[in-house]
């Protein structure tokens, strides 16, 4: 099987982001919050300050490195919540059908009708800013695609011979869903999840930009952009580097999602067997 460029590049970018987040204390030159020094405020990028410094003299490079932690935590955790909700609802709706399916369908349509960022904004308004509310808000508002896919897969898988065989062998509903249906729909779910992580990173940036995300002074890419708004002409490096970090991470996740789709596509898989 030919390994695809998008899979490799996307995987490398995502892995790089994760490594940076994990190794932040070793990679960063200074503490992202405490090492403020007005004597070297707004320095442009140089050998000492790789990405320059902000108006309080904090090292942008170190802040971008630490910011990876927030962005990735939000991306991964909120998408995990979305995937679990989407799979649980979609899988059970597709398998059981009936009134439960109607309820889940109505919910899904509702979620699809309201832009998820607006929905997340509303939740954040209630919960207040902060990492936890960010995770909850983004984790509850972006499961509709996963749910759709899971439901459609369950509908088609439920008439498969092995699912019926499992019923005949005395498997209960839950066991059938977990052992027979779930593993056979994992491919598309993982693809959607990867793409969803990318959009969660973007949403975090957007919400933080609006001041609803992670509280300053702790850095997140979105809040750094927000802080840099006023100095975009005088100190463009303040927005360029966090922006670049968001861009590369989201690009990586999208490429990875595309690459996984090619590899996990049930049609290309059945062609191999």
């Amino acid at each position, binding site marked *: 099987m030919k390994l695809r460029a998008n899979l490799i590049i996307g995987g490398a970018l995502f892995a790089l982001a994760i490594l940076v987040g994990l190794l932040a204390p070793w990679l960063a030159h200074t503490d992202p919050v405490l090492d403020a020094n007005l004597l070297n405020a707004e320095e442009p990028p140089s050998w000492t300050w790789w990405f320059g410094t902000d108006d309080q003299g904090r090292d942008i490079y170190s802040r971008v490195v630490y910011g990876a932690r927030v962005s990735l935590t939000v991306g991964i955790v909120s998408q995990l919540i979305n995937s679990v909700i989407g799979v649980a609802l979609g899988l059970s709706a597709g398998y059981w059908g009936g009134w439960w399916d109607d309820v889940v369908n109505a919910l899904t349509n509702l979620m699809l009708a309201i832009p998820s960022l607006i929905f997340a904004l509303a939740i954040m308004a209630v919960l207040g800013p902060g990492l936890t509310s960010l995770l909850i808000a983004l984790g509850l508002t972006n499961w509709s695609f996963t749910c759709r896919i899971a439901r459609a897969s369950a509908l088609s898988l439920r008439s498969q011979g092995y699912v*019926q*065989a499992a*019923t*005949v*062998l*005395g498997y209960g509903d839950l*066991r059938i869903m977990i052992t027979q249906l779930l593993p056979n729909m*994992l491919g598309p779910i993982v693809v959607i999840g990867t793409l969803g992580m990318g959009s969660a990173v973007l949403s975090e940036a957007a919400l933080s930009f609006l001041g609803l995300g992670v509280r300053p002074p702790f850095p997140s890419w979105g809040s750094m952009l927000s802080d840099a708004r006023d100095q975009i002409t005088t100190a463009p490096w303040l927005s360029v580097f966090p922006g670049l970090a968001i861009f590369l991470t989201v690009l990586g996740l999208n490429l990875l999602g595309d690459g996984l789709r090619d590899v996990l596509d049930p049609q290309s898989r059945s062609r191999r067997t």
Partner: protein
Amino acid sequence: MTGVPLIEVEDLRIDLDDGSRCVAAAEGISFRIDRGETFGLVGESGCGKSITALALIGLLRQPLSIGGGVIRFEGREIQRLSAAGQRELRGNRIAMIFQEPMTALNPVSPVGRQIAEMFVLHKGKSWREANQLAVEALASVRVPAPERRVNDYPHQLSGGMRQRAMIAIALACGPDLLIADEPTTALDVTVQAEIIELMRNLCAERGTAILMISHDLGLVANVCRRVAVMYAGRIVEERGSADIFRAPSHPYTQGLVASLPRLGSRAALGRIRLKEIAGVVPAITSFPDGCRFNPRCAQATDICRTVTPETDLLEAGGLVRCHHHA
């Protein structure tokens, strides 16, 4: 036979309700299978064999449902059992194998795991024990190198090996009844014979009764002690296997037997054409009145077109449903 039969079906009717109207897809189905016995159900495609089997294990789903009659397993009415009680029977006491060994196994799970799951599910074994038992189960269906094969995925196995794995899964919990619905039609003829032989031997060793379903009268009569012939949703004749070949009583069965090539017969040598039954099977929505076979029956008379024949006891043993049976 003494005591309570293993499974007893009395006047079973299966309704097909498509929303606008309700027709009986099968009716008047009665038979019993004793412990360790082999019983065959034969008939053309669509006559209701598979739905009868599904009714036995409580798995008829919309638009099909049990419209009447009783099914007893060891004297207990299956319809009266709770959902959990029925599930307890399935796989554990009554197992079933299907026509399609290609699709009846989960493609993303190693076969050993699928066998082991039965021990975990029904016998409360730990996964460690269950995996060990799975190797033994695979060995018992004569899969070579079972300790390596347990890790194989279904697509790595040939059709015959997959059907062996299916048999291993079905017999894992030592069921009392094995329902085999066309278990070999998807396989090569030589593999077919091996699989049937294997299934028969294993069941004989363990005292497992077999309900074998097929359109192939020759195959069923070869495996089973008794055979029931179904036509258009009714059982028309039930006999010992040898009797049904020697002296078929119902005109439909006579037609079936006449259409079978016999070893050494003139037909098998190609000198005369095999007889076929003229006409086609009626559709489920347009079963004729009276005897359902009457449009195709050479012996049909007026009464056949209006009155449904009752089941008669034959002197030689067996049952037949025909006004003018031999």
